[in-house]
């Protein structure tokens, strides 16, 4: 039996968790192995050190403080559940309302912008018709005909 296995068995034996047969093998090995004997004594000593740690006596019960904490925590949970219920009921409706209102606002803004643009174009058309761009080529030609600026073709020796 190798020492590595024995040392693991020592840890089990200290807890009384090593089966009887393995315990016999362990004790035989320890009797003839100084290193494992030292390990066995070291583990026993460690156990007694751990069990001898002093601990303060505590007589006061935690129950009164515990009751207060549980009540406070439950009150907080009830409050959070109320918020959650409210949110579940009203948030979807609020979201839809917000969308509709946003849509109306955008629509209204676009209308106002178009109206302002049309007024601007009308004013511009009266003041400087040649600057007004249209999609209508005939209108463009008419605008050109009405323009007072002489075109190079018109500049003939007779004129």
């Amino acid at each position: 039996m190798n020492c590595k296995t024995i040392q693991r068995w020592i840890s089990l034996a200290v807890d009384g968790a090593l089966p009887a047969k393995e315990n016999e093998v362990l004790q035989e090995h320890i009797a003839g192995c100084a290193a494992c004997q030292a390990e066995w004594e070291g583990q026993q000593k460690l156990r007694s050190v751990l069990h001898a740690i002093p601990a303060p006596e505590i007589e006061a019960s935690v129950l009164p403080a515990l009751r207060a904490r549980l009540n406070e925590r439950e009150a907080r949970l009830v409050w959070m559940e109320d918020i959650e219920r409210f949110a579940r009921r009203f948030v979807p409706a609020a979201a839809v309302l917000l969308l509709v209102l946003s849509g109306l606002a955008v629509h209204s803004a676009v209308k106002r912008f178009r109206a302002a643009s049309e007024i601007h174009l009308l004013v511009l058309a009266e003041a400087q018709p040649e600057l007004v761009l249209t999609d209508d080529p005939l209108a463009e030609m008419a605008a050109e005909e009405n323009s007072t600026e002489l075109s190079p073709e018109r500049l003939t020796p007779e004129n």
Partner: protein
Amino acid sequence: MANPEPEERSLIERVARGDKAAFEVLVKAYEPRLLAFMARVTGQRDVAQEIAQDAFVKAYFKIGTFGFRCSFYTWLCEIAINKFLDWRKQRRRWFRKHALTDFTEPHAPPDGSQSPSERAASRETGRIVRDAIARLSPDHQRVLLLREFQGASYEEIAAAMRCSVGTVESRLFRARQRLKEILKPWMEKNEL
């Protein structure tokens, strides 16, 4: 799977349905043991009480996850150890942030059976051993504290920590090897 007494099982099932009176019965049954366990782990009365309270609060709200895989008390101790590890992590962070050294000494009140020098030596032993345990990994601390300070069996520890018995054996072995190594200077001089 643990087999609790029928009365305890019934109490736990009632607590899961929100019965605070049933929970108080459990608290009264386990409070002295849990406080003694945490007093040994922390060495400080007020910290032990605070952590025990935290553990009971958590147990109340998480009782639905208990599952009867180990005894209720072992499950409670596991919760308490996790609370203790969190507390210690926060404390270290606080001391590091304020660039302070934690000189607080855990101490037990004098019981008249020891001389002042014996009491001082005893407190020092406790401090040295607790500091050494604190240097182990969290999993090693859990198995060691449950085994050495609470006396839980390997099977109970395995169920509480949701691992195999083989893993518990292995972790305990490594935890003890490491602890012996850390405490070697004091043990060699017979100062423990």
